[in-house]
């Protein structure tokens, strides 16, 4: 049980180290209390020697370090008080360098250095420079990191920043920046080197240990961002380039990811906007394993939020051509990282699209551009099979719908259908449902035949079987749900202008006819009723304008309806077709088109005779025929007689006697209609009744 032993051992060593510190601290305090500098130096050096261990993991070393840190704080107060120990700070600075081992020596030096700077007997920059260079002597990663961290901590309030008391002749912000940058660079080097040190360890453990220390390195960037004197100029010319240089050159994926993230988090968004090119230029140079998309997404998110924070900021985005730069950068990254899986590329585009939608929502060309880039990427790859990738594509396509609440906008994006083309049949259907739901949710109306055409192309996965897939494979419930959605959609297609409306109907017809027998029973009825509504609208308008070629007339629409309902014979769906024929008959009656109405009745009867076999269905169907016929007023005597005779005949032939009675009784109304003249033929009724009823 090696690991358990290891942990136990570490606890033991830590305990030993702490004991050592406490032991020496006791004597240190005694020395300080008696103002004995010599003794104080001796015991503090011994105390600090505990930090020379290489047996502790970062987590444990930190505990040890904190104890030492506390003692050094007290020691610093002692050092500051020259009257107590009688040594000038200059001398003290020299004296501590006599400590035997390098690590304690440097801790003490830094502590004295702090006092030195405070005393102002030497320029801050000189002391800082000296210290940061001297720390080079410690090359062990963990020890070096904590030492430099200590240096960073005590120097923090002593940097020659603008307005600070340490600013003076020759002491400028640049000196402060140089100091921090150098410390940062050295710390990063040490941090990266950690993975090569010591016995071979399990990678995960190593990464974990390294992660624990990352904030020590990152802190320097934070300090840089806090320096008042670091304005955009200095950031752009000095800070960013040097930080990026270190990030790229260290060639370590853990460091690169963390530091890029850090830069983005720590420095203000306006800076990022103004240095976008430089910042983005670093990305293709990073190690392939770095999860760039997360970092880039972070950046784009921050910039999106920044844009949303105030309207005044927006022109800046345009001025620096933020979108173009981001777009290019993403392109370069995808190009450079050949190994990147498709899902990575797509999620980058999703982030970019989100950015475009939030920052430049009026620029549909940007949105289309992103889609276009995506199409290019998808074209170069094999058909999407990866679940995650498909989810990302769906997210990409859904984003504009949610942003614009208006299907029209999505329909104008030229690349939208091309992206959908790359989805497999299953996902195409999912996306199609999303489209339909979006239309239903926002109650939008698709108002031209052209748009309807584009829309139905987009949802073609629902409309017909796309190559390779069989409708049979689908769960019946799901299939019904899909087709019912398409049916509902038909009612959202509308235009006030009858000509355009007719065009819309023709377009829908064109598409649904390819749907096959399974789909027609769902898609035909809404189309039929849509057409009937148009007929009614035309009825309301004045009669045909003489001499003009008007395509939209009730007669033409009835022709179309006949053909549409005819298609149901392939399913076959006789009962539904019968009902629809009767609806058309009534509508034709209202338009006074006797032959057309008669023809529809004939069709209905044919279906009744030849296709409706179930007795219950027959009862309902004959009642519908009778009920409809009863309302007809466009028929001349002959036509009406023929149809009435037929209806009565069939009524008497129903299977069950009670049904026969009821149906024939219903037929009686065909001979006697209260609100019409001429149809009160009691005699004829009696004749027919008797004829059928013996």
């Amino acid at each position, binding site marked *: 049980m090696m690991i358990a032993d290891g942990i136990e051992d570490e606890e033991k060593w830590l305990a030993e180290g702490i004991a050592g510190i406490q032991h020496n601290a006791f004597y240190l305090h005694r020395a300080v209390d008696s103002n004995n500098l010599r003794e104080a130096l001796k015991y503090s050096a011994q105390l600090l020697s505990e930090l020379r261990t290489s047996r502790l993991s970062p987590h444990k070393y930190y505990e040890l370090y904190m104890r030492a840190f506390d003692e050094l704080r007290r020691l610093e107060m002692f050092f500051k008080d020259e009257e107590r120990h009688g040594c000038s700070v200059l001398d003290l600075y020299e004296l501590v360098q006599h400590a035997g081992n390098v690590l304690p020596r440097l801790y003490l030096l830094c502590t004295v250095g702090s006092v030195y700077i405070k005393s102002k007997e030497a320029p801050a920059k000189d002391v800082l420079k000296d210290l940061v260079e001297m720390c080079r002597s410690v090359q062990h990663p963990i020890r070096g990191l904590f030492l430099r961290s200590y240096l960073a901590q005590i120097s923090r309030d002593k940097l020659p920043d603008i307005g600070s008391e340490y600013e003076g002749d020759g002491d400028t912000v640049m000196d402060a920046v140089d100091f921090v940058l150098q410390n940062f660079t050295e710390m990063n080097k040490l941090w990266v080197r950690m993975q090569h040190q010591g016995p071979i360890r399990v990678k995960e453990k190593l990464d974990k240990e390294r992660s624990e220390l990352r904030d020590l390195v990152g802190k320097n960037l934070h300090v840089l961002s806090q320096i008042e004197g670091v304005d955009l100029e200095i950031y752009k010319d000095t800070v960013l380039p040097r930080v990026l240089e270190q990030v790229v050159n260290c060639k370590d994926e853990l460091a690169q990811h963390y530091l890029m993230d850090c830069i983005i988090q720590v420095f203000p968004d306006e800076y990022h906007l103004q240095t976008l090119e430089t910042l983005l230029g670093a990305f293709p140079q990073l190690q392939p394993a770095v999860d760039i998309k997360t970092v880039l997404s972070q950046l784009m998110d921050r910039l999106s939020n920044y844009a949303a924070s105030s309207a005044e900021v927006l022109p800046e985005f345009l001025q620096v051509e933020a979108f173009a730069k981001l777009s290019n950068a993403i392109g370069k990254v995808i190009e450079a990282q050949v190994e990147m899986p498709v899902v990575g590329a797509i999620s980058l585009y999703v982030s970019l699209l989100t950015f475009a939608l939030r920052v430049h929502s009026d620029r549909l060309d940007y949105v289309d551009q992103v889609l276009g880039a995506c199409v290019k990427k998808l074209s170069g790859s094999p058909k999407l099979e990866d679940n995650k990738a498909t989810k990302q594509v769906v997210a990409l396509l859904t984003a504009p719908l949610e942003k614009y609440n208006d299907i029209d906008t999505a329909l104008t994006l030229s690349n939208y259908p091309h992206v959908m083309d790359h989805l497999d049949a299953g996902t195409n259907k999912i996306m199609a449902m999303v489209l339909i739901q979006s239309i*239903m949710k926002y109650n939008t109306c698709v108002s031209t035949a052209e748009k309807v055409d584009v829309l139905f192309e987009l949802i073609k996965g629902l409309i017909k079987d796309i190559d390779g897939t069989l409708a049979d494979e689908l769960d019946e419930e799901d299939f*019904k749900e899909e087709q019912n959605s398409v049916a*509902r959609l038909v009612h959202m297609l509308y235009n006030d202008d009858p000509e355009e409306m007719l065009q819309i109907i023709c377009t829908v017809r064109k598409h649904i006819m390819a749907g096959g027998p399974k789909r027609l029973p769902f898609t035909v009825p809404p189309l039929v009723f849509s057409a009937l509504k148009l007929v009614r609208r035309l009825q309301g308008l004045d009669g045909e304008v003489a001499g003009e070629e008007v395509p939209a007339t009730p007669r033409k629409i009835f022709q179309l309806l006949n053909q549409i309902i005819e298609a149901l014979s392939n399913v076959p769906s006789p009962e539904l077709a019968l009902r629809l024929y009767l609806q058309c008959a009534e509508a034709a009656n209202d338009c006074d088109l006797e032959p057309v109405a008669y023809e529809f009745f004939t069709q209905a009867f044919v279906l009744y005779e030849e296709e409706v076999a179930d007795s219950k269905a027959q009862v309902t169907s004959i009642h519908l025929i009778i009920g*409809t016929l009863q309302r007809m007023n466009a028929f001349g005597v002959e036509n009406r007689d023929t149809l009435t005779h037929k209806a009565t005949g069939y009524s008497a032939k129903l299977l069950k006697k009670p049904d026969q009675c009821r149906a024939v009784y219903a037929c009686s*109304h065909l001979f006697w209609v209260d609100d019409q003249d001429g149809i009160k033929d009691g005699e004829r009724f009696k004749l027919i009744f008797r004829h059928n009823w013996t």
Partner: protein
Amino acid sequence: MVLVLALGDLHIPHRAPDLPAKFKSMLVPGKIQHIICTGNLCIKEVHDYLKTICPDLHITRGEYDEETRYPETKTLTIGQFKLGICHGHQVIPWGDLDSLAMLQRQLDVDILVTGHTHQFTAYKHEAGVVINPGSATGAYSSITYDVNPSFVLMDIDGLRVVVYVYELIDGEVKVDKIDFKKTTASANSAH
């Protein structure tokens, strides 16, 4: 007081995409004790939706309903009232009061609820009351032009029923009400 929702002829998805949003926001689950539906929903999704508003759903078959097993007619008793439901395409001439009255006597009910014409009506005659809640979606009808979406809410209280009709006219919901009183309580023994 017992609230009964009466509606029908939605014709979803053949003739309408959905119930009007204003109606949907009014039909909150838990407020209604019974639903009476004249038929022509037409699909299961609508059935399920109605069930969420109230689980006690009584429905008869319309000629376009997907579910063929709904009954042609149905009767039920609520409080002092006997109610009857029938879609109405079976009663010819369609919408004829005399013929409907015949059906009412046949079913022996105080209140007959039918549909098919997509036209709200509420008639009182000696045998009782005939109510047509119209079309809840304002669906196209060969019988009625310019259909406004409508439904009926009956408040049954003792021997009195108040019929509220909700109609969507030009985007606004208008309410009207009619009072009916029964003259005698329902007898337990046969005549």
